[in-house]
């Protein structure tokens, strides 16, 4: 191997970069001043009076590579940036969003339908006794009951107890009526239970019915109660 000093001048910086392809790959092409390198390379050859065509060829090839690298980077930069999404005017209202249409099998079977029928027929039985007044049900209490604040506080519990009582009557296959519910109670207790009953009706735990020309109130379990029980 030749000692360092005997190696041709162009193997030394700054020209060595043109003669070392590996180095060329690693370096940022923008840091390479080709015109300076090539001019000084030619001047140096003239100065030393050593015209080496092979070295010139390699220098030319390397310069072309650096140019290619530079132009590739330039092209990359010039790729049009993706346009920002169009800014709509503040009062822009988009068109309706159309939901995709998909068929979906439901879980309801004829079995479910008939179980539901059984339930429906059970309730019907209770009504068959009287002609109901058209669609009439009791409206919820309007907050006109005086001196019931303590009582209201425990309303939830009272409702639960009364509903249980109604349920047990119906479960025995008997007809739940108000007079039956409050049988043997004092007047004030009857009023109290009547109010609770209205709350239950308001929450759809029970439905209340009255037939024409009668004071009796018929009670059936409402949807809330039946659903709750099923769960």
């Amino acid at each position, binding site marked *: 191997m030749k000692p360092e000093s005997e190696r041709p001048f162009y193997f030394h910086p700054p020209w060595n970069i043109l003669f070392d392809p590996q180095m060329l790959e690693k370096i940022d092409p923008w840091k390479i001043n080709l015109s300076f390198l090539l001019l000084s390379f030619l001047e140096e050859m003239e100065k030393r009076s050593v015209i080496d065509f092979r070295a010139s060829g390699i220098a030319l090839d390397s310069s072309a590579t650096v140019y290619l690298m530079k132009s590739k980077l330039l092209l990359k930069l010039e790729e049009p940036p993706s346009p920002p999404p169009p800014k709509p005017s503040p009062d822009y209202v988009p068109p309706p969003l159309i939901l995709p*249409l998909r*068929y*979906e*099998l*439901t*879980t*309801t*079977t*004829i*079995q*479910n*339908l*008939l*179980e*539901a*029928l*059984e*339930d*429906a*027929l059970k*309730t*019907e039985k209770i*009504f068959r006794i009287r002609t*109901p007044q*058209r*669609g009439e*049900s009791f409206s919820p209490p309007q907050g006109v009951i005086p001196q019931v604040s303590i009582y209201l506080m425990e309303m939830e519990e009272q409702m639960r107890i009364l509903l249980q009582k109604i349920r047990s009557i119906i479960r025995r296959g008997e007809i739940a009526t108000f007079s039956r519910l409050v049988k043997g109670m004092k007047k004030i207790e009857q009023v109290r239970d009547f109010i609770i009953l209205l709350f239950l009706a308001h929450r*759809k735990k029970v*439905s209340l019915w009255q037939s024409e020309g009668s004071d009796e109130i018929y009670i*059936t379990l*409402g*949807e809330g109660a*039946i*659903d709750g029980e*099923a769960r």
Partner: protein
Amino acid sequence: MGKPDKEGNEEPKEDDVKRKISLIEAALYVAGRPLDLKTLGSIIGSRSKRKIRELARMLMKEYQKRNSSLEVLELEDQRFVLQLKADYASKVRRLAVKPLLTDGPLRTLAYIAYRQPVSQKQVISARGTHAYKHIKQLLEMGLIERKRFGRNKILRTTEYFADYFGLSHNPAVMKKQIARILSNIKNKGKNDKTEKKE
């Protein structure tokens, strides 16, 4: 369908046929129930029953050729339906998660099916005033229909209802079917009930 004259300008016509067959497929898919020729005709914009049936049969044949999990069938009354083949139903049924109706409206529907034709008044008196809302929903879903008779509103189930539950379109037969299955359930229910409660 156009005859195969290769030189004539067949393409647009073929495209039109293909488009109409696709429309029939779309209709059957979305409906999920048998559709009659009139309904299918209203979708593809044709009144010729012969033509509509021909197109629907082409779709049916295409499905036969595909031999996949879905099939198009022609029912006795010239209605067509797109459905899952029975072999596959048991394997994928558990993926269905939503009921057709919640408990309340389902009970009202069952009641109407059993008592039909039944006055709205009677339904309300048997099911409570909340049944007004159920009836509205059932009408919207096309499961029942309502007609006026003098001062009364009469409710009955639709053909779609019968199709959905696999019941006869004949009201008398349907009521018998319901009664029969109901008594089966009742007998079975007596044994099952104790299990369910736990």
